[in-house]
């Protein structure tokens, strides 16, 4: 096995960078969606509850690959008409944007459940104490609920991020040049599929290990001041 992979080493590195970028962007979108979904699901307003519930059930019931394909190929007509409306002909979703939206959507649906569990795990008294002190609803959320929720939600989110990182490979199907796509390109030239896919597997393993270590430190930091009662 050649170390520089017949000259494809730098391309694989670029692919790794793209995978990381994609994962982080999708993570950001997914966290926002998950937070909104969880707030909607735990809100006292019925239509919002219904909306949050439908979102998480619907998105979790359909394969990630189908979402990627649906968002990439399904929005062509929509984007075209939007482009005509905005006087920007040829407007279309790039593979990267489609990937971020699809993966963010899926991450958000699972994160909705994780956040909801975390919100429900916060003792009621904390919210009531905030109310009694005369804090506004927004303040209670940002100062009391969210900071505590983090700590409880973090292990679940870590698992989801691991899954997200592996799901980025799906976006290669719509041609985004991340690790898998670069490996495929390398294979077509060198006819050494096993070598390239094994290298891709190793890169994913490395990324997973890095993410695991990062999560460990984040969890430690979030849990400072807390001891598990034995």
């Amino acid at each position: 096995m050649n170390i520089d992979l017949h000259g494809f080493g730098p391309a694989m590195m670029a692919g790794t960078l793209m995978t990381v970028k994609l994962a982080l962007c999708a993570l950001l979108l997914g966290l926002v969606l998950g937070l909104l979904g969880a707030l909607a699901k735990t809100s006292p307003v019925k239509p919002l509850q219904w909306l949050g519930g439908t979102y998480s059930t619907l998105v979790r019931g359909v394969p990630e690959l189908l979402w990627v394909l649906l968002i990439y190929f399904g929005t062509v007509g929509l984007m075209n008409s939007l482009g005509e409306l905005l006087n920007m002909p040829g407007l279309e979703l790039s593979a990267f944007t489609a990937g971020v939206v699809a993966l963010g959507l899926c991450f958000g649906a699972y994160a909705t459940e994780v956040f909801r569990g975390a919100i429900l795990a916060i003792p009621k008294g904390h919210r009531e104490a905030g109310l009694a002190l005369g804090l506004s609803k927004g303040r209670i959320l940002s100062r009391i609920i969210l900071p505590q929720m983090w700590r409880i939600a973090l292990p679940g989110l870590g698992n989801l991020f691991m899954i997200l990182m592996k799901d980025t490979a799906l976006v290669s199907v719509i041609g985004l040049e991340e690790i898998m796509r670069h490996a495929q390109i390398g294979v077509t030239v060198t006819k050494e599929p096993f070598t390239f896919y094994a290298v891709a597997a190793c890169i994913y393993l490395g990324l997973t290990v890095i993410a695991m270590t990062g999560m460990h430190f984040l969890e430690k930091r979030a849990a400072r001041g807390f001891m598990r009662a034995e």
Partner: protein
Amino acid sequence: MNWEVIIKWLPRLAQGATLTLELVAIAVIAGLILAIPLGVARSSRHWYVRALPFGYIFFFRGTPLLVQLFLVYYGLAQFDVVRNSSLWPYLRDPFWCTVLTMTLHTAAYIAEILRGALQAIPKGEIEAARALGMSRGKTLLYIMLPRAARIGLPAYSNEVILMLKASALASTVTLLELTGMARTIIARTYLPVEIFFAAGVFYLLISFVLVQGFKVLERWLRVDACQGR
């Protein structure tokens, strides 16, 4: 939304759905059989017994299923040994490659579920079995595994649903399961929204039926009765 097109292609999609079900059924059952020795070895007290299943689980949980699928389907053909072997007719076939990969993949996850379940068995029950004079093997077979099956069943049902969704990846190696069939139809009709929507409804339906089925199974095995400590 163009409903006539959806109705027209519904039989083909159903055909794809049967292949999806076939893939998932073989993978989760074969995966379970493979996972039992893995999970038992993984929860062993000796590090040298634990090491091999740990490496296996680490690899299969740490890399995307797509990579594993490509490694088996495209990758193995790189070696002449494989191409000249008697297994080549199977390893050349996308169906068997997908089944093999999905089985190996899900076995890693199920083994991890089984380990969690084995470790969650109250110590007293195992000690009671040993005190009654059961050998280690008998304790494992008659006490620990039936108990672990009930503890791990909810997690196993999750894994089956995840495999149902993972089976969509088979479309990337030319298999015409639900997603693959949808993509083929779209290549003919140029109606991605309608056909993907119909395929999505199929997936939702299948997962709904599976969830209900597992609920019945849980009631039959009296899973909730075992939860009381």
